[in-house]
């Protein structure tokens, strides 16, 4: 079997169990809130219109944005509770995901619930009153059983939506089947993307069919169908959740990764190093740049790799450029003083922001440096990654060289390189450790005014892990051990169009090359 499919299979139990847990919790809570709300709404127009309106409104928010919005919200709440009660909670991962998906699951249950409850034959309800049923008996013995098929149809819709939308929980740090998709998009591993989509689709279909059996059983009053569907759901859920129940206890570390290949590989390397010490390590992937640092400072992840220039401008809000060594030292003391975050040490290479062009274009236009570029820029098209245009580096570049492009577009990094290749854009924001620079023979434009700060890759440890002996032992061998060449090759091995390595394989190869390979 294809190496990538095997790699995907191996990840399935972990991803699937988290996905199922997340969907089940969101649906369960969604149902527990929506059903009483539907009962209240079916009886009173003053509850009905506002609740249906709000539920519909939530539905219009793109699910990815809804998930992302819960992180800052929870972070602010957690900061508040921490300062008031000395007790905080994780604003990343399960909690924001489950809250956003719960909201998302509510509309179909609420809408069908109201329709079902209000659709019960008035004569039957009059008989129920007339015979002397109390209000709750009318609801439980007559109204709910009679509207159950319609309500169940709503639950079915909610289940399909929730399982689908749960794939978007990856960027807020919740492991799920979406990890295949996000990782695959980032590294152009289409096998992973397809695998993730297929797995989510199969899961949604299975849930839909089993809930459909229950719905049919309720409609035709066939107890056997209800039992069959329920048994299928319970058995399926238990089997899918097994990896969570059987997870071994013991110290467990969470390694963070931002949303690009280099970060996936380094997080895997770090997790391998931690595992080699006998502890458990999980990787929380696809965090945004600012999210990752805040998550670390809040102790939601234990370690990740960031870059000095990024920390300098984004976290410390500095815009000068004191030089590589001075910046490293200053970042180290500032982070410790401000957030208690420990800069454990540099890995040995830089992943700097650079501007790059195709060699033929650069030659034809006679551009070799950013100074040359500024004169030609108004007639050129610029392609940036999703963050660059809102980053201080871009402001610094524009100020230093007076850059003003004719057109600017943001891309996923993968598609950014594609656009440069096919001529859709002339200049891109690239990363110096990116394997595609060497592979595509791209020209990196010189920065004579040193407008862009240095970007040493450094390991950061969360405040609570600053003096953690196990992490120190695990990461020590990585310090100064990774050359820019080694990193470029590792990045290219997962990014290249053909003969891709899995993230795990690329991580193992990098470990061997760095001489840190954990015994396996």
């Amino acid at each position, binding site marked *: 079997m294809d190496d990538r499919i095997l790699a995907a299979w191996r990840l399935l139990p972990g991803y699937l169990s988290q996905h199922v847990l997340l969907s089940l919790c969101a649906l369960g809570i969604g149902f527990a809130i929506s059903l009483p709300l539907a009962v209240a709404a079916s009886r009173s127009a003053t509850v009905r219109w506002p609740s249906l309106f709000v539920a519909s409104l939530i539905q219009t928010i793109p699910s990815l944005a809804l998930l992302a919005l819960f992180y800052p919200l929870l972070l602010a709440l957690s900061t508040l509770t921490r300062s008031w009660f000395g007790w905080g909670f994780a604003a990343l991962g399960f909690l924001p995901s489950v809250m956003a998906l719960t909201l998302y699951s509510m509309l179909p249950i609420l809408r069908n619930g109201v329709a079902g409850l209000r659709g019960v034959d008035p004569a039957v*309800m009059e008989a129920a009153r*007339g*015979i*002397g*049923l109390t209000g709750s008996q009318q609801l439980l013995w007559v109204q709910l*059983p009679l509207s159950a098929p319609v309500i169940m149809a709503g639950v079915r819709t909610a289940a399909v939506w929730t399982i689908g939308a749960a794939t978007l929980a990856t960027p807020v740090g919740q492991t799920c089947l979406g990890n295949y998709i996000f990782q695959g998009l980032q590294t152009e591993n289409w096998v992973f993307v397809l695998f993730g989509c297929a797995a989510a689709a199969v899961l949604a279909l299975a849930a839909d069919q089993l809930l459909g059996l229950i719905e049919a059983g309720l409609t035709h009053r066939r107890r056997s169908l209800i039992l069959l569907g329920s048994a299928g759901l319970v058995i399926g859920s238990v089997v899918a959740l097994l990896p969570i129940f059987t997870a071994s206890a013991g110290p467990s570390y969470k390694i963070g990764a931002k949303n690009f290949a280099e970060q996936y590989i380094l997080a895997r390397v770090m997790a391998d190093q931690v595992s080699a010490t006998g502890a458990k390590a999980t990787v929380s992937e696809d965090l945004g740049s600012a999210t990752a640092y805040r998550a670390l400072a809040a102790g939601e992840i234990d370690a990740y790799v960031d870059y000095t220039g990024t920390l300098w401008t984004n976290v410390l809000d500095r815009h000068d450029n004191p030089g590589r060594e001075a910046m490293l030292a200053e970042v180290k003391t500032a982070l410790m003083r401000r957030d208690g975050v420990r800069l454990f040490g540099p890995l040995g290479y830089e992943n700097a922001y650079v501007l790059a062009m195709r060699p033929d274009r650069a030659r034809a236009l006679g551009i070799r440096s950013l100074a040359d570029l500024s004169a030609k820029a108004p007639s050129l098209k610029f392609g940036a990654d999703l963050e660059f245009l809102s980053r201080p580096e871009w402001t610094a570049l524009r100020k230093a060289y007076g850059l003003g492009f004719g057109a600017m577009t943001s891309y996923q990094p993968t598609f950014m390189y594609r656009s440069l290749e096919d001529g859709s854009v002339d200049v891109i924001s690239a990363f110096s450790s990116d394997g595609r620079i060497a592979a595509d023979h791209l020209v990196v434009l010189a920065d004579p005014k040193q407008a862009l700060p240095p970007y040493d890759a450094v390991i950061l440890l969360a405040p609570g892990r600053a003096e953690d002996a196990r992490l120190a032992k695990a990461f020590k061998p990585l310090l100064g051990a990774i050359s820019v060449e080694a990193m470029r090759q590792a990045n290219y091995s997962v990014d290249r169009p053909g003969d891709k390595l899995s993230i795990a394989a690329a991580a193992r190869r990098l470990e061997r090359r760095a001489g840190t390979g954990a015994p396996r």
Partner: protein
Amino acid sequence: MISFDAVTKDFAGRRAVGPLSVTLEAGQFVALLGGSGCGKTTTLKMINGLITPTSGVVRVAGAVVGDEPLHRLRRRIGYVFQEVGLFPHMSVAENIAMGPRLAGWDGPRARARVAELLELVALPADCGARLPGTFSGGQRQRVGVARALAAGPSVMLMDEPFGALDPVTRDALGRDFRALHERLGLTTVMVTHDMMEALLLADRIIVLDQGQVRADGSPRDLMGVQSDPVVAALMETPRRQARRLEALAHG
């Protein structure tokens, strides 16, 4: 047994019933008669509290309706209406056993009661397990009557109970119920718009018009009311039918 004391009911400021002061004796079979919108159904539903009077007091067996929780009052009063309203998700036996179940009867006693009632309303003993959806209209209403009688009420309220049935079935059910009324010593109040039905079944007929009592008396009394145009109009159909039958019988 049942009394209305200066009872009125307004809907959206419009007077639907009253002021109404009437006393119904125990053991009577009373027909509330009138055209659509005369207030007969509203009057009936104020007896078991499905509708609350705007002013005045309704009493059942001496107790003011609304003083105790309505569901408790309703468990002592049988209620049958045209749409029947059988619980479609419960078997016929479960439908009939609902009243006994609410009264806290145990399983064997409730089952025995169901069998007894099926016989009483002339339904086959083996039909208890079936769902109401599989029955004809007449059979469904027989189940409705059985359900209303199950907990042994002393009062039966019936809102055009046989109105949706074909004439033959309707007549059969009417006669059967009148017999049950005698046998069980019920006090029955039946709403109808059909003077013929009222004449055939009731001991006392109260004619309502625009929420007011227009005439009140035995069927024989009503035959004597010639002056009132509303009563005369209601009596016209049975009279004509009788004349026609008379004519046919005597060539």
